[in-house]
């Protein structure tokens, strides 16, 4: 449908039958189709170039459906800055919303809510938004935005300057929702847009390829595109490294905090200028996860806990394709921090979950900004404070920050100082810390997985031996102690008789261990037995001696006993063939007792299992002790230490 703009007369075209607004490319008027004809809703300001690099008319695919980028809207955030939404027209006729923020993409569709949505005023960041049918999302943002600009064709009435109340929510399954409550006092009910996060590759917009090309350029850094401005307070030269995205900047000369969303204006004059040089200078480029990030800002923050004040530094990193990241320096311990959608982590009692991993609550407090250097994507203020909570699963740490209108989750990953030094190619080593960081991993932390693997192998090995050890009985004999001769070397205290027995020949298979078991029913007596295992064919003899003794009685009304009337000995494997046992017993026991002897081969050696367990347990215990000491050290800095670590502490 071809028309002429009512404002400027330029030709314009509604390409889609079900669109409502077409933005005039000449005068930026919003031209609406109504049942009464066409009308202008007002004029938009010039749109900023798209931060995503997309262009109107570009095509892609979503779940097999081709789509075209038909329109774009820009909203101004109440805290400053703006974000854009693309309107996609799919091949099946549907309209979709494609949003892009901080390197994350989401596709949403207008959806009828399965249940009545709560009132805007009844919601707050961090609360759960129930959409019915078991869908429940975490509210990340609850704010009012204003329609700033648009281009192309839009599927709804988009009025310049309109104030839109909205709630953004997401969950850990990748679902994302926006509830548009419209202007305050709007007669229409809230509109639900439900969708999911997508990867750029899924969309086929060529975003991934463009990002990869740009990342591959080693010299690509926003610092190179910096814009020089003069501080309105002191006249000092200020370089904006991310013009268009930075909303505030600190003057390095006078310390003034400046609003740089438009012409520079002073936000605060009292900021302190710190002459100290940071470990990583502003403008430095560091490569993390294959992406070159530039340090654009630096904050010092502190949190007050019952035990004192803890302060740390946060470097704001920026890469054009990946967006913002943080490098946190907590007293010499560094973490690379990635922002997460609010619903990606779920907070519960004493912990949080992310991607199926449990994180333990480490600390909770209120953090405030105490020093500012460089530029930031929001209008930072000294004293700006948020409620924080940190949850750890070393080397990762989930951090939650909540203000009145927003909830932010981020994932920090511990970096060794050497990694940070290498990432920025720093000439000097970074200052070391003599403390354990909240998310510092025990250096050998993966010993636990190895121990589990060894335990599984141990069970398998023992099972194999249990199955393969058939304990074949080779001989069983009984020898009454009769016809003994007195030992000529016996003393008065050891008077006894010696008995010598030979077993009949028995066959051993050879190559397997041989167990000899002796049993003599002694009663407060002893017997020393020498056992010879003789291979008849070669005359090879193997011998061992053992004492059987068994004593018992009653002392002070209590029964006691010691020793045993039986004993076993395990011979190593010998040759196959006919064997005999020679037994010589020396005992003062009265004649008539019967010595029972049994011989078995290929038996399960319980004693060897004991040695095996001991040999495995020693290094395991040493590692466990070292790990435990490390964890106690870590948790000594927390008020939320697990009870098993608190019990072991000195406090």
């Amino acid at each position: 449908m071809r028309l002429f703009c009512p404002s400027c007369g330029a030709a314009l075209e509604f390409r889609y039958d079900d669109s409502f607004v077409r933005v005039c490319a000449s005068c930026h008027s919003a031209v609406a189709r109504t049942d009464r004809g066409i009308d202008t809703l007002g004029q938009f300001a010039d749109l900023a170039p798209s931060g995503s690099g997309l262009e109107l008319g570009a095509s892609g695919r979503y779940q097999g459906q081709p789509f075209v980028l038909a329109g774009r809207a820009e909203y101004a955030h109440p805290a400053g800055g703006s974000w854009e939404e693309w309107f996609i027209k799919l091949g099946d006729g549907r309209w979709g919303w494609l949003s892009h923020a901080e390197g994350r993409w989401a596709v949403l569709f207008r959806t009828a809510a399965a249940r009545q949505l709560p009132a805007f005023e009844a919601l707050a960041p961090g609360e759960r938004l129930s959409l019915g049918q078991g869908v429940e999302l975490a509210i990340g943002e609850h704010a009012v935005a204003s329609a700033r600009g648009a281009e192309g064709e839009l599927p709804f009435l988009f009025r310049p300057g309109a104030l839109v109340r909205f709630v953004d929510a997401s969950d850990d399954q990748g679902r994302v929702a926006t509830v548009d409550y419209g202007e305050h006092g709007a007669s229409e009910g809230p509109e639900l847009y439900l969708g999911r996060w997508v990867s750029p590759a899924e969309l086929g917009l060529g975003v991934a390829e463009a990002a990869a090309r740009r990342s591959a350029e080693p010299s690509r850094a926003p610092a190179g595109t910096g814009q020089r401005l003069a501080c309105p307070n002191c006249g000092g030269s200020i370089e904006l490294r991310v013009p268009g995205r930075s909303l505030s900047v600190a003057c390095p000369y006078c310390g003034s905090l400046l609003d740089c969303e438009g012409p520079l204006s002073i936000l605060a004059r009292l900021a302190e200028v710190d002459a100290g040089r940071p470990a990583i200078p502003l403008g430095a480029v560091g490569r993390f996860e294959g992406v070159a990030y530039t340090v654009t800002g630096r904050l010092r923050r502190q949190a007050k806990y019952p035990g004192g004040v803890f302060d740390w530094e946060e470097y704001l990193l920026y890469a054009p394709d990946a967006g913002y990241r943080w490098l946190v320096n907590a007293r010499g311990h560094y973490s690379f921090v990635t922002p997460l959608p609010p619903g990606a982590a779920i907070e519960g009692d004493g912990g949080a979950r992310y991607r199926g991993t449990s994180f333990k609550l480490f600390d909770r407090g209120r953090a405030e900004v105490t020093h500012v250097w460089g530029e930031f994507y929001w209008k930072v203020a000294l004293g700006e404070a948020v409620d924080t909570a940190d949850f750890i699963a070393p080397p990762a740490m989930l951090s939650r920050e909540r203000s009145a209108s927003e909830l932010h989750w981020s994932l920090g990953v511990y970096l060794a100082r050497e990694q940070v030094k290498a990432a920025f190619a720093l000439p000097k080593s970074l200052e070391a810390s003599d403390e354990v960081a909240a998310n510092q991993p025990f250096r050998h932390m993966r010993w636990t997985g190895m121990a589990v693997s060894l335990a599984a192998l141990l069970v398998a090995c023992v099972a194999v031996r249990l199955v393969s050890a058939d304990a074949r009985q080779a001989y069983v004999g009984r020898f009454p102690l009769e016809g003994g001769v007195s030992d000529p070397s016996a003393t008065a205290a050891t008077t006894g008789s010696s008995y010598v027995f030979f077993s009949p020949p028995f066959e051993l298979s050879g190559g397997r261990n041989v167990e000899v078991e002796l049993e003599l029913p002694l009663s407060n007596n002893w017997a020393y037995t020498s056992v010879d295992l003789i291979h008849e064919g070669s005359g090879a003899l193997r011998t061992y001696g053992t004492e059987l003794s068994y004593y018992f009685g009653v002392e002070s009304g209590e029964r006691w006993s010691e020793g045993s009337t039986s004993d076993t000995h395990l011979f190593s494997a010998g040759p196959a063939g006919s064997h005999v046992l020679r037994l010589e017993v020396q005992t003062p026991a009265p004649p008539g007792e019967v010595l029972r002897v049994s011989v078995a081969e290929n038996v399960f050696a319980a004693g060897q299992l004991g040695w095996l367990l001991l040999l495995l347990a020693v290094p395991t215990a040493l590692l466990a002790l070292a790990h435990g000491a490390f964890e106690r050290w870590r948790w000594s800095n927390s008020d939320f230490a697990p009870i098993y670590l608190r019990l072991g502490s000195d406090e």
Partner: protein
Amino acid sequence: MSEPSAASGPPGPRLPRPPRTGLVWAYGAYGLAVLLAYLLAGFTGYSYESEERDSLPLSVRQAPGGYRSYHLWHSGYQGGK
């Protein structure tokens, strides 16, 4: 309300796994060696229990009682409590 289909999972980085250190590998190698030694001992019939070896003339079988174990013969063991 239509459910968004085929959610691609949480949009965020995967959790890193620190590499195994040399000590962890050494621990694993040691444990494996101990387990293999255990299996080897089991299948070859090795026993660590002490025993003495000697060789007897065949005439011993023809002279029961004439042979006395060298435990008793040489050490003259005197047991008892």
